[in-house]
C-alpha cells in the first residue's frame, strides 16, 4: 500500500492543563481532499500548525511528505502550501508584489517568478486586479489571492484553514469548485478545515469530525451516515393530491406493512416511519388503494444530522 502523504501518530498538544489536541491519529493519501470538520476551538488550527512545524506537539509525531514536521519543518514547508484563517498581506504592496515576494522566499528563480505569479493569478481569476494594492482588496479577493499565494510554490499538499470564512454563498461555491478542480487536475492533496458542514460536503472525499481535540469519526459521507443511523428508522414523506379525511380508513392496512412503525397524517401529507427502507412497498400500496400520489420524499440524513448527532454525543 502507498505511504500516506500526511501521517499523524498520537499527536497531542496541551496548553497548560487544557488538551487542545488529544492523541490524534490520521492518515491522508495522496490526491485526496480531506475535510477536517469541527466547531470553533476544536483544535483544528492547532493540528494544522503542528503539521507545519509552527507549533511543537506535546507528544506524538506529524509526518508530512515523509518528513517529520517538528524536527525538519523547512522541507515540509517547501512542499506544503498553507492558507491561514486570518489572511493578511502587506498592504503597501500590490497583489503581484505580494505574490512575487512569497515566490522569492520559496527560491523560485528570478527569471520565471513573474510569469508564474501571473499564471496563478489567472488561475484564481484575479488577472484584472494584478496591480491593485491588497488593502483595496475585498475579503473574497483576498481569499483568492491567498489561494494563488499557496499555489505559486507548486505544492504537493495544500492546507486550507477555514477557506470559506467570510465569503458570500456564490463565492463559496466558486471557490470550492476551484479547489476541487485544481486538486483533480494537478493531483494535489488538500486538507480543508471548516465548521461549515455544507461546504465540506460539497468537495471532500473524506471527512473527519473533530470535537474537543479528538477525532470522533472519519470516512466518506456514506459510511459516516451509515454508522450513525444504522439503528435509527427511516422516514418517507408522501404527498397526495387530495386531503385525507380523518379518521383514515386505510390506516390499519398501512401499519400492517413490513417494518412500518408509525403513521403521521397532516391533510395531504403522510409521514411513514419504518425500521428499514421500504419506500416502494409503501408507494405501491398507495397506488393500489387509488390515491393520487404527487410526490414521495425519502428523508436522507445529511451532514447536518451527522454533525448534530456527534455534537450531542460529545456533549453528553
Amino acid at each position, binding site marked *: 500500500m502507498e505511504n500516506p502523504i500526511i501521517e499523524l501518530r498520537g499527536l497531542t498538544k496541551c496548553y497548560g492543563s487544557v488538551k487542545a489536541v488529544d492523541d490524534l491519529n490520521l492518515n491522508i493519501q495522496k490526491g485526496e481532499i480531506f475535510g477536517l470538520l469541527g466547531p470553533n476551538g476544536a483544535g483544528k*488550527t*492547532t493540528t494544522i*500548525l503542528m503539521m*507545519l512545524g*509552527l*507549533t511543537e506537539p506535546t507528544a506524538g509525531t506529524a509526518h508530512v511528505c515523509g518528513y517529520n514536521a517538528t524536527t525538519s519543518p*523547512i*522541507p515540509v*514547508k*517547501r512542499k*506544503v*502550501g*498553507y492558507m*491561514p484563517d*486570518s*489572511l*493578511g*498581506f*502587506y*498592504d*503597501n*504592496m500590490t497583489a503581484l508584489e505580494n505574490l512575487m*515576494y*512569497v515566490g*522569492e*522566499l*520559496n*527560491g*523560485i*528563480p*528570478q*527569471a520565471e517568478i513573474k510569469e508564474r505569479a501571473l499564471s496563478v493569478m489567472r488561475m484564481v481569476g484575479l488577472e484584472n486586479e494584478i496591480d491593485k494594492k491588497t488593502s483595496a482588496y475585498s475579503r473574497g479577493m483576498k481569499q483568492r489571492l491567498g489561494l494563488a*499565494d499557496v499555489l505559486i*510554490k507548486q505544492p504537493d499538499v495544500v492546507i486550507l484553514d477555514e477557506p470559506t470564512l467570510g465569503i458570500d454563498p456564490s463565492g463559496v461555491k466558486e471557490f470550492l469548485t476551484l479547489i476541487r478542480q485544481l486538486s483533480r487536475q494537478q493531483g494535489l492533496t488538500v486538507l480543508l478545515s471548516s465548521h461549515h458542514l455544507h461546504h465540506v460536503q460539497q468537495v471532500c472525499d473524506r471527512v473527519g469530525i473533530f470535537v474537543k481535540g479528538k477525532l470522533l469519526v472519519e470516512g466518506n459521507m456514506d459510511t459516516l451516515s451509515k454508522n450513525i443511523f444504522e439503528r435509527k428508522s427511516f422516514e418517507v414523506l408522501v404527498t397526495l393530491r387530495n386531503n385525507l379525511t380523518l379518521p383514515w380508513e386505510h390506516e390499519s392496512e398501512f401499519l400492517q406493512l413490513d417494518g412500518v412503525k408509525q403513521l403521521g397524517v397532516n391533510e395531504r401529507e403522510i409521514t411513514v416511519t419504518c425500521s428499514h427502507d421500504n419506500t416502494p412497498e409503501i408507494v405501491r400500496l398507495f397506488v393500489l388503494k387509488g390515491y393520487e400520489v404527487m410526490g414521495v420524499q425519502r428523508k436522507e440524513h445529511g451532514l447536518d444530522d451527522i454533525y448534530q448527532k456527534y455534537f450531542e454525543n460529545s456533549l453528553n
Partner: protein
Amino acid sequence: MSSFVVSFRKNTTENTHVPPSTPFWVMVRREISSHIRSWRFVLLLGLVALTFFGSIYVSFGNIRDAVNNVKDPDHLFLYLKLLTTTDGNLPAFHVLLSFLGPLLGISLGFDAVNSEKQNGTLVRILAQPVYRDNLLLSKFTGSLVLVGVLFLVLTLIMVGAGIFVTGVMIEVEEALRILSFAIICVMYVGFWLSLSILLSIAFTQPATSALAAIGVWLFLTVFYQIGISMVVKALVPNTSIMSETDILSYNELLFRLLRLAPSQLFTDATTTLLMPSVRSLGPITMEQMAGAIPSPLSYKESLMIVWPQVSGLIAATFACFALSYYLFMRREVRS
C-alpha cells in the same frame, strides 16, 4: 574553434544565470523597501536631515572663529569642528543625535513583530520555507542598513560641503574619527532598535510597545540621571569633612552608575571621538594632569578611551536581541 565557441557560450550563460537570493536577503530587501515607502520613514528622515543641516549651517557660520581660536588644542581639526561647533542656540549634531537616535530606533522597530502578527502576515511568511530567526534578523538588519546608509550619506554630505566651502582637504585622522562617529551612531540606534523589537514581541499591541519603548527612553534620559544623583547625594556624607580621595571615589561611583544608561555611553563615546583633546571621561586628579600638554590625542588613543563605552553599547544591543530571540522562537504564531 567551434568547441571553443560552445564552451564560451556555456560560460556566459552560466555567468548570466542569476541564482535566487537566499530567503534572508529577500526579507531584508522587503524590509528596507517597505520602510522607504512608508510615511514614517519620510518624517524621520526629514527630522534627522533638518537637525543635521541646521547644526551644520550654524557651525559653518562660526567655523572661522573656531578655527582661529588658538587656545583650543583641537582648532586645526576643521571637519571635527564643523560637527561640534555651535553658537549656543542650537546644540551640536552629536548632542541632538543622542535624542534623535532613540526616536529613530524606536520608530523603526516598535511594530516590527506585533503588527505583522495582527495583520496576519506573520503566519503566512512563517509557513514559507524560512527559518524563524531569519525573520527577526531581517527586521534588525533591514532597519540597521537603512540607518547606516542614512548616517553615511549625511557624513559624506558634510565632508563634501566642507571641502566645497573651505577648500581644505580632509585628513586621514579626521576621516577615521568621523567614520567611527557614524558607526557609533548606528550602534546607538541599533540598541534602541533591538530594544523596540524586543518590546514588539513582548506586547501584542503596537501602541503599547511604542509607549513602552518611549517610556524606557524617557526614563533613561531624564529620570535616571535625577534618580542617580539623588541616591548618590543621600549616600554621600558631608563633603566638607571628606578627604579628596573620598570625593573622587564617590564621583567615580556616580559616573559608573550614570554609564549604565546607553545615552551616556553614546555621549561619552562621541564626545571623545569628535574632540581629540578629551583625555579622560572621569574626573582627573591634579597629579595626573601635571606635566600634560594640552594637545589632541591620536585616533588610536581616543578609541582606547571610548572602547569600554562602545563594547557596552554593543553588549546592550546583543542582550536585547538575544532576549528577543528567546521570546520569539518559542512563541505561538497564531493570533
